[in-house]
């Protein structure tokens, strides 16, 4: 519920900011007046018409996803891509609606404003969202496996105030540790059902015990829990994997190291 409300606020503020940034570009270009040669109301109608389509494009890039890191360059690239799309849609809409064209420099300014302005807003809003979701443990997360990888992951999730809040750890072989960074080790996998219910787990992150993947996934499917698995469970520890598609089927790929540009064509 809390996350839903925050997402709605985020979408609405994005929409308003997109329109506001275009208006800013208009006033910077035309001057802080309501010009009769290039009327603001036409400009406003066109941008208001385009804004929802631009927002849909941004949603499709999963820029609002829980797992998406807003300050990552990839998110910046997606927002930039949508900014180009917004500019193109605006030009076309304005032309179709009013049959005339206007300042090209305004379009360039609007593009940069929406790219960087919205990216900055996304980074700020992510901070608010994470603080809210983390503080209220909206997504209690179960970690399976006591390993160095799981320790590092817990520390990172806590440091970054990730919405996925680790609340319990289970280990198939039984761990002597009582807790990892304050997260209690609650026993072996026989405690799974109990922990899933007691802690109202929403996400399960498997960090080891590959042989139990099917059963962990089965428990997650039955209880409507999101299942996440670390690549290290499969022995991929160098962080050079990527998720690809092979004939439409999702696959995890680890390619041999080569020049950076090979990445584009492998």
């Amino acid at each position: 519920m809390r996350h839903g409300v925050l997402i709605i606020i985020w979408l609405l503020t994005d929409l308003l900011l997109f329109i506001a940034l275009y208006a800013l570009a208009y006033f910077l270009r035309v001057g802080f007046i309501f010009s009769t040669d290039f009327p603001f109301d036409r400009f406003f109608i066109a941008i208001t018409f385009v804004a929802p389509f631009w927002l849909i494009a941004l949603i499709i890039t999963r820029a609002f996803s829980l797992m998406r890191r807003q300050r990552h360059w990839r998110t910046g690239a997606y927002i930039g891509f949508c900014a180009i799309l917004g500019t193109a849609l605006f030009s076309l809409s304005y032309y179709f609606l009013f049959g005339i064209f206007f300042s090209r420099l305004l379009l360039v300014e609007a593009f940069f404003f929406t790219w960087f302005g919205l990216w900055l807003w996304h980074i700020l809003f992510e901070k608010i969202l994470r603080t809210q979701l983390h503080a209220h443990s909206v997504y209690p997360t179960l970690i399976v496996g006591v390993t160095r990888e799981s320790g590092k992951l817990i520390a990172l999730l806590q440091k970054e105030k990730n919405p996925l809040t680790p609340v319990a750890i289970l280990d198939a072989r039984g761990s002597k540790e009582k807790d990892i960074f304050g997260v209690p080790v609650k026993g072996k996998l026989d405690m799974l059902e109990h922990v899933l219910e007691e802690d109202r787990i929403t996400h399960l992150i498997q960090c080891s015990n590959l042989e139990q993947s099917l059963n962990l996934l089965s428990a997650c499917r039955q209880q409507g829990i999101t299942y996440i698995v670390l690549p290290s469970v499969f022995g991929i520890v160098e962080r050079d994997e990527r998720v690809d598609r092979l004939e439409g089927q999702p696959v995890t790929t680890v390619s041999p190291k080569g020049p950076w540009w090979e990445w584009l064509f492998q």
Partner: protein
Amino acid sequence: MQYLILAGGFATRLWPLTEKRAKPLLPLGGKPVITHLIEKIPFDAPITVSTNAAYGESFQKWKHDFPNRQITIAVEQTRSDHEKLGALGAVAQWITNEHIDDDIFILTGDNYVGFSFSDFLKHYTPGIPLLAAHDIGSKEEARHFGTVVLHEDNKTVRSFEEKPAEPKTSLVSTGCSIIPKKELPILIEFAKQKPDNIGGIFEEFLRRRIHVHCFSFQEPWFDIGSFDTYLQAIIAVLGPGVEQAPDVHREELHYEGTVVIGAHSHVKRSHLRDTVIFENCIIEDCVLERCVIDNNCILKGMDLSDKMLRDGTRLIARKLRD
């Protein structure tokens, strides 16, 4: 004589098969492992099954299979592995709580033994502790058990070592013993120090220069502690072939080794090898090797080997595009 079956373990190595049932209630040849033990115990003997709070209810249900037997379910109030009393601790608690003043025949509920209990009882000399031992033929394997070295009479125990690093013998103690009533105070005292070391009580008897007798047997014995031993026990008890409940639906089933199919299950166009399918499962277009599939699973288009699947697992492989 009182019969005590220990069934208080949480069987974490057999998870997820033990998620909803205790290890002694796992099916073996059409009935729970513990039922094989009950059937060997003299009909009029009082039997106590000691279990934990997590499985208490399922043992109460199981007890209804024996309306004419004197079976009591003793529940220790533990719900997880780290809370448990330990096997010897559970025995001591039961002796104290129930004021037992009799010889006790102790059995571990997750063991399958092939010998007859009347033969075992014939070897019991009143007042002398007796344990059943089996030669597993491998000293390497014997490191996981209590090993027994006998005197020349092949009956009296010379030494007992619990899980030795370098076993002197491959004759190992099984989960079957008799403790005479006069030695119960020693058991209670020892349990305070080592509540989890049930085999250690024989070391303690020998340390106190108390004679211990051994009944060696050749018949099969399985300590069902892991997926491998459970499957081994099923294969040995049932032999090759398909063992199925009467209302199973099967079509184009190819099998090798031992295959068990539980009630109300459907198996179609599948190849199974040394696999156990519990009740209400649907298996289609699958290749399963050395798998144990719990109740209510649906598997379609899967190839699996050496897997235990939990109750209600649904794995339906999406077809690859042509």
